């Protein structure tokens, strides 16, 4: 049933949407703002919104004290590597679940998802032991493996949903047209699933980039990504809000830019399948 949209209603919903948007964005905005204040201004009461002495000092201090590029590089490798590895494992898995399902497929999918409900700290000890045993502590390879496993259920689920949207008859047509399994996946399935695969990759890069529990617990110096970079400003010398904010801003900037440019793709990817 179509519902008529009155101008009044439109104004109200627009205002509500802006309110929610601003509410969600506020912490990020505040962080960025604080990064340009002095430490004194950062804890000023009442809080300063716009009228203070803008300074870049925090950024130069942060850059002097720690090597931002090294953390950034680790983040890039860990997020990118775990995503690529995850996609390689998940595409065949999702293909088989979507197109040659067995009676247990639904159970397997739910079981995979249920692992996401387990509190990560519950397996911290066994995983730490494995890391110690195999010499993986504070290595990028170890982090890539763990983050890949942590996010794999989400990757498989997303790809499975996209693949389900592809009509089986088109793949059957390819088979009738003489395509083997390889040609079918390469020439027909993958090109049709590109939007889905792209948004899966994007979302997973963001998840891996922001992952803090494992990256903080399994790294020390060598393999530490940007999450560790932020954390290093929160405790040892007391709280320095302005510097912490500068570090945070530097850490989230790349992913914020990536998200900005790919927002259309992301929204489309995440609502794909929800609207027929």
């Amino acid at each position, binding site marked *: 049933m179509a519902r008529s949209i009155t101008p009044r209603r439109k104004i109200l919903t627009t205002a509500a949407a802006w309110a929610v948007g601003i509410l969600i964005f506020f912490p990020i905005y505040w962080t960025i703002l604080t990064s340009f204040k002095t430490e004194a201004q950062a804890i000023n009461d009442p809080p300063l919104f716009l009228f203070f002495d803008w300074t870049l000092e925090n950024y130069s201090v942060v850059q002097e004290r720690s090597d931002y590029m090294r953390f950034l590089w680790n983040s890039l490798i860990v997020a990118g590597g775990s995503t690529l590895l995850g996609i390689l494992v998940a595409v065949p898995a999702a293909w088989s679940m979507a197109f040659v399902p067995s009676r247990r497929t639904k159970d397997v999918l739910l079981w995979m998802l249920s692992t996401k409900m387990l509190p990560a700290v519950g397996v911290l000890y066994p995983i730490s032991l494995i890391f110690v045993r195999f010499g993986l502590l504070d290595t990028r390879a170890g982090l890539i493996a763990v983050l890949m496993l942590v996010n794999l259920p989400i990757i498989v689920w997303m790809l499975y949903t996209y693949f389900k949207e592809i009509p089986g*008859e088109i793949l*059957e047509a390819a*088979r*009738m*047209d*003489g395509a*083997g399994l390889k040609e079918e996946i390469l*020439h*027909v399935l993958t090109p*049709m699933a590109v939007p889905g695969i792209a948004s899966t990759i994007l979302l997973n890069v963001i998840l891996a980039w922001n992952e803090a529990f494992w990256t903080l617990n399994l790294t020390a110096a060598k393999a530490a990504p940007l999450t560790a970079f932020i954390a290093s400003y929160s405790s040892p010398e007391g709280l320095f809000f302005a510097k912490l904010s500068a570090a945070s801003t530097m850490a989230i900037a790349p992913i914020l830019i990536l998200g900005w440019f790919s927002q259309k793709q992301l929204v489309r990817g995440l609502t794909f399948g929800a609207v027929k």
Partner: protein
Amino acid sequence: MGRIALNGVTKSFGVTEVIPPLDLVIEDGEFTVFVGPSGCGKSTLLRLIAGLEDTTSGRIEIDGVDATGTPPAKRGLAMVFQSYALYPHMSVRRNIAFPLRMAGLDRAEIDRRVTEAASALNLTDHLDRRPGQLSGGQRQRVAIGRAIVREPAAFLFDEPLSNLDAALRVGMRIEISELHGRLATTMIYVTHDQVEAMTMADRIVVLRAGLIEQVGSPLELYREPRNLFVAGFIGSPRMNFIDGASAREHGAATIGVRPEHIEIDPDGPWEGRIGIGEHLGSDTFLRVHDTGLADTLTVRAGGEVGLKTGARARFRPMPDKIHRFDEGGARIG
């Protein structure tokens, strides 16, 4: 060449037997239609021949070679799907060329065949469009084009016209029949529409619950249906069935008379009240009630019959057009 033989083919999904043991031979060059109500197993049978489903037991031979375990890609058959199943990310040209690319033909030969198929199917102006930019009829022609370029041993059609509107359906029906006349390749065509079956087929296979009820030419099925099911399924409007005393007079449990074999006759033995009349211009189909024979009799009258709703009239069945059936529904005589 395209002779397809099924020997004792069965198909079960879990414990449900969809196709009980079935034998059927489709001769080279024949246009065979599988027809039956939904769920009768006709599409499953087609998919078994295509290789898209595995047989549970039995043998499928194509041109004398056992193809039971051969994957669909290697059977040399082409299929046209109900949903067209075009590749949405490829242009019409690339869609039609796809099976040729898979077969590893050289580019010049692919271009030649695609151009030829496109001009035969009136698609030349649309070669660089995507399927999404085409109408339903054009999409179906692309699907047919994709099937004919490979010069397959046989064509399999799975309800190819059900997504088209009525006018287009008639046009495509004729196009497919003409295509068969031109190529003289074996075609197997699945439909639930008996009009399509009657107008297109050399031979019709009537299926019910996976069993073959009758195989024959359209006119054989029309003239001598082997049982009540076939009698009721073939012919439009449906055959009238009458049981009870009137049937026993003819020495049968049930008799059947087609609407076109009942005449309006003031001296006729049957009498009834005229209900709704469906005027098609050339013909009028009258629903006749209160005959004491069946709930409703359908009678074909001339295009401009003068009978009004509610009027009473007398009818006469053509004596040599009465079909007789026994208690089990099988044809007598």
